[in-house]
């Protein structure tokens, strides 16, 4: 940003604004990450929580 940082208020406004934008992106991103990580779970997990034995090295 071109605006010079002179006061503490300027600094806080800049850093907090960026942080808030980041946090919103992260909250949305985590939903997709969660889905990416778990959407195939049912394929290989038995009801008792044990992973099936067809997962080899």
């Amino acid at each position: 940003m071109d605006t010079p940082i002179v006061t503490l208020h300027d600094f806080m406004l800049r850093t907090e604004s960026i942080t808030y934008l980041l946090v919103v992106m992260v909250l949305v991103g985590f939903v997709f990450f969660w889905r990416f990580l778990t959407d195939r779970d049912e394929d290989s997990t038995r009801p008792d929580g044990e992973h099936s034995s067809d997962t080899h090295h």
Partner: protein
Amino acid sequence: MPVPKFAIQKPAWTPFNVVAGIIVVVGLVVTVIRFTQGLAATTNLSDYNPWGIWIGFDLLVGVALAAGGYVTSAACYIFGLKRFHSAVRPAILTGFLGYTLVVLALHYDVGRPWRLPYPFIVQRGTTSLLFEVAACVALYLTVLFIEFSPAAMEWLGLKRARQIVVKLTLVLTIFGVVLSTLHQSSLGALFLIAPSKLHPLWYSPYLALYFFVSSIIAGLSMVIFESTMAHRYFHNKMDAEHLRQADGVALGFGKAAAWVLAGYFVIKVVGIAQADTWGYLATSYGAWFLVELLGFVLLPCYAFAISVREKNLKLIRWTAAWSVVGIVVNRFNVGLVAFNYHLPSSERYFPHWMEIAISVFVVTIGVLVYKFIVTHMPILYSHPDYDAH
């Protein structure tokens, strides 16, 4: 007590034994030099650089990589994930050995090692982070010893004593998690005292949080890594339960590691945003910082996620090893590379060969003791005379 078959069959002059023997001999010679001639004869430490690799590697990395103990026992006994039960004993053993070696390495690093108990009996300095670290490490080492002891008691046939200790499992686990939370974070907080010495990209008011969260990553990755090594070299020591649960442990811990790495990446970026240090990313230190952040945090996060999704156990195991390297890189960066970054290169620290020799010696001792214990005690299998706890 029956003598293990393969202990008799294996020849003594294996490449492993020869290399380990040479390292131990060199280590013992350097140990004598260190304790007879002092730190100046064996290290490149100075007033500018009072902490070298004996702190940056042996202590910071050692404590982080020993986190598998509290992570695994918390998953099993506190969160009730009994499908990880077979991973608890190996993780506790790794943690116990890790902390023992940390304390051993500290004896080399501190000028007057016989004063190590002073924080408890002479000057308590309760406002000092070092006091907090000392207290927690001492207490947690004791906790790990007690948590590990049932395996030794089963080996020695001490049924009554084992029965008593097993009843303490949950209390010890809770105690271990509390102590680990405290000192893993405090090790990061130690650097808060030197904001002008640590490069702004690594310095952050959140250092304590970074160290704690990354210790969870280290613990999860180390359990997968150690299990991979155990499968490779001690396969014949594992019972059916360990063999059956191994894949599930790798998948479960890999998924957890993907999550924690994602969270760690976010708090690191938030740290940059809060300190407004974006400009430093365009410098050479920034390039190295990005290697750490993208190469050792984001990349393993993605690799864990992909491998868990695809159930690719080989990739999970390679990623775990990569994450372990990442933890080493991070602790080296905070403790050595980014520390005193403003000094001219002539004043910068590079370890003396004897410092490296002692670090290798300490790790080798750990591997040898691990090998002995796993060969003789019920770590990778359940003792047939005892119920699982």
